């Protein structure tokens, strides 16, 4: 009961409500703009959160996360371009339905299923995060090491890209985290005599570079691309018939999305793809999928928004990001001096339940904004890239510079922008780099501390039941893409 009251706290704070309002609005705008998204937006807004108290800062980031994930659907339906990667599956049926003159119906279903998925996942978060945190009390250094390894091996199954390429990108991310003074012995590593590198490579320059700057370079290759926009008159709430057709799909996808979100390193993109394919598998009319199926939209959208709450579970309970955006939120927590983990649940329940409540309200707010303002948000996509991206560049440069007031950070951001562009061009996802970077210190630190505990005996890792379980799960995660591809080959 007390916790429920704590969850309602944001409703009674005008400051938090204002933060939620702007966060949701900003998140929607970011979600609508192809190439941007909650990860880039969160990274860019991170310096501004320094002017806020910790709760307001995290509420701002989480509301951007929730609304940004939904916002991608608007562009997916109206211009057949996902505003965020998580909305890619929404294009498959959203756009064909819009082409049939039913854009309002498609967006109505996307809005309702996103809201239901989002709220469902917050409920999961409220129930499961404390349980996971309680479990985490049993974790020592070896268990955290095994858990981090599990998170990294999950990279093998991110998206549709090559599992090995994802693992290379993840290993590269960890390698970046080793730059600077070794935190245990103060020995310089990969600093090449540059003083600014002794502090290591910051998270923000890497994120902004890999997401925003690499996207700017991608957009430079698409300047002659013409989008076929579909006019939107008004969003329509789903009809009784639509609800009858989709309620099971929405609930199933909400469950799938929340579960996928909880898995370390997975996120909305994977959730929406699985939610979509499961909706097709269970549908009475699978032949309609890809031609404007309302179930397809519901399946994808409920799943990607459900992943938001799910991804917050390991982030808050264990300090292991559930997705790229939660990696940004995790950085926000650390910057504000909040250490995620089991102690957070015991010592700062007001803070934690404030976040849960804010996420719940953000889901309701984006429903209202989306329902009444989708037409306006859709117009944002009319801003030409030749004006939009130079402006994003100015904000990215100043945002990156502002955190440490270091020009080197800006150059690092540009370097990662170029690197990210070529990585994406040759099929390497940039998300694993972010996850690797954020988990790098944990992996190395826990490994070295475990070896001290075990007196250098590596085999001792396998004598700890929880650690052993995570290692077995890691092996399954590594084998999963192989099994999946064999299954697909067999089917063909």
């Amino acid at each position, binding site marked *: 009961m007390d916790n429920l009251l704590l969850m309602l706290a944001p409703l009674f704070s005008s400051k938090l409500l204002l933060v939620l309002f702007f966060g949701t609005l900003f998140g929607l705008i970011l979600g609508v703009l192809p190439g941007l998204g909650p990860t880039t937006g969160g990274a860019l807004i991170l310096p501004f959160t320094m002017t806020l108290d910790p709760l307001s800062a995290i509420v701002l980031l989480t509301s951007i996360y929730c609304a940004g994930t939904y916002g991608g659907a608007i562009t997916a339906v109206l211009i057949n371009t996902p505003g965020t990667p998580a909305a890619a599956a929404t294009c498959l049926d959203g756009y064909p339905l819009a082409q049939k003159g039913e854009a309002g119906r498609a967006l109505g279903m996307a809005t309702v299923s996103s809201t239901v998925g989002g709220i469902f996942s917050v409920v999961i978060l409220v129930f499961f995060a404390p349980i996971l945190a309680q479990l985490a009390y049993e974790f020592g250094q070896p268990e955290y090491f095994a858990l981090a390894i599990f998170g990294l091996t999950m990279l093998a199954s991110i998206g549709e890209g090559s599992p090995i390429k994802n693992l290379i990108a993840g290993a590269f991310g*960890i*390698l970046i985290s080793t730059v600077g003074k070794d935190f245990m012995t103060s020995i310089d590593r990969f600093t090449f005599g540059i003083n600014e590198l002794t502090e290591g490579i910051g998270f923000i320059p890497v994120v902004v570079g890999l997401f925003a700057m690499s996207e*700017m370079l991608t957009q*430079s290759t698409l*300047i002659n691309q013409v989008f076929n926009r579909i006019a939107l008159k008004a969003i329509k709430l789903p009809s009784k018939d639509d609800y009858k057709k989709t309620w099971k799909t929405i609930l199933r996808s909400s469950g799938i999305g929340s579960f996928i979100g909880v898995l370390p390193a997975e996120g909305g993109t994977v959730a929406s793809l699985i939610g979509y394919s499961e909706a097709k598998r269970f549908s009475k009319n699978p032949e309609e999928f890809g031609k404007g199926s309302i179930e397809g939209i519901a399946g994808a959208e409920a799943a990607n928004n459900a992943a938001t709450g799910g991804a917050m579970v390991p982030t808050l309970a264990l300090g292991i990001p559930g997705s790229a955006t939660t990696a940004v939120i995790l950085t926000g927590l650390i910057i504000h001096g909040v250490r995620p983990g089991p102690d957070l649940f015991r010592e700062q329940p007001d803070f934690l339940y404030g976040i849960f409540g804010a996420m719940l309200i953000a889901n309701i707010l984006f429903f209202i904004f989306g329902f009444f303002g989708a037409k306006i948000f859709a117009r944002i996509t009319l801003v030409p890239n*030749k*004006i939009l991206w130079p402006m994003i560049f100015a904000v990215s440069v*100043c945002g990156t510079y*502002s955190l440490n007031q270091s020009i080197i950070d800006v150059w690092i951001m540009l370097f990662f*922008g170029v690197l990210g562009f070529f990585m994406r061009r040759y099929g390497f996802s940039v998300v694993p780099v972010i996850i690797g970077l954020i988990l790098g210190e944990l992996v190395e630190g826990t490994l070295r501390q475990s070896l001290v505990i075990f007196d250098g005996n590596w085999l001792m890792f396998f004598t700890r039941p929880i650690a052993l379980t995570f290692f077995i799960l890691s092996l399954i995660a590594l084998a999963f893409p192989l099994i999946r591809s064999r299954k697909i080959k067999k089917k063909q």
Partner: protein
Amino acid sequence: MKNVQKQKRANKSLPFFFRDEFRVSLVIILVSVALLITTFTFDIVPPILNRGIQPATFPKALLVLIIVMTLLIYYLATKNPWKVEKKLPGSFFLTLSSFVIFVVVSKTLDFFLAISALSIFVSYCWGEKRLFYLLLVGIIFPIIVFIFFETILGLRFPPGLITNIYYS
């Protein structure tokens, strides 16, 4: 799907050193080997201060892992070639060169000037010819951003030709 197959076939017909999978793998391996060599220059900690493993051990293991996995993707690519990517347009190279110009100008002349120059250059190269919009993205917007960051975050931008005038 057919298009991808066609692109893959086109890739297979190229000599191996022209194929993307060879070039990309080679670059990753060369960089990894160079970094691996660098790890041998890291200081060695005396046993009494050594916590678990030497500071160089972990990066070394990572680099070896990256090299092994890269060899594996190359081996797999010989069986299933990557699709040939389209040639990059001139606008890409102009945008890329604007990054270089930005670094040079921000280092030698002025941070604000660098942002302004890049914004105008990129906008123009991407097809914006209207003066008002060029001024908007190149001067008006960066000024707003500068003032915003300075007042809200109390940020002090690095000294330079224009920034010095502003601060004086």
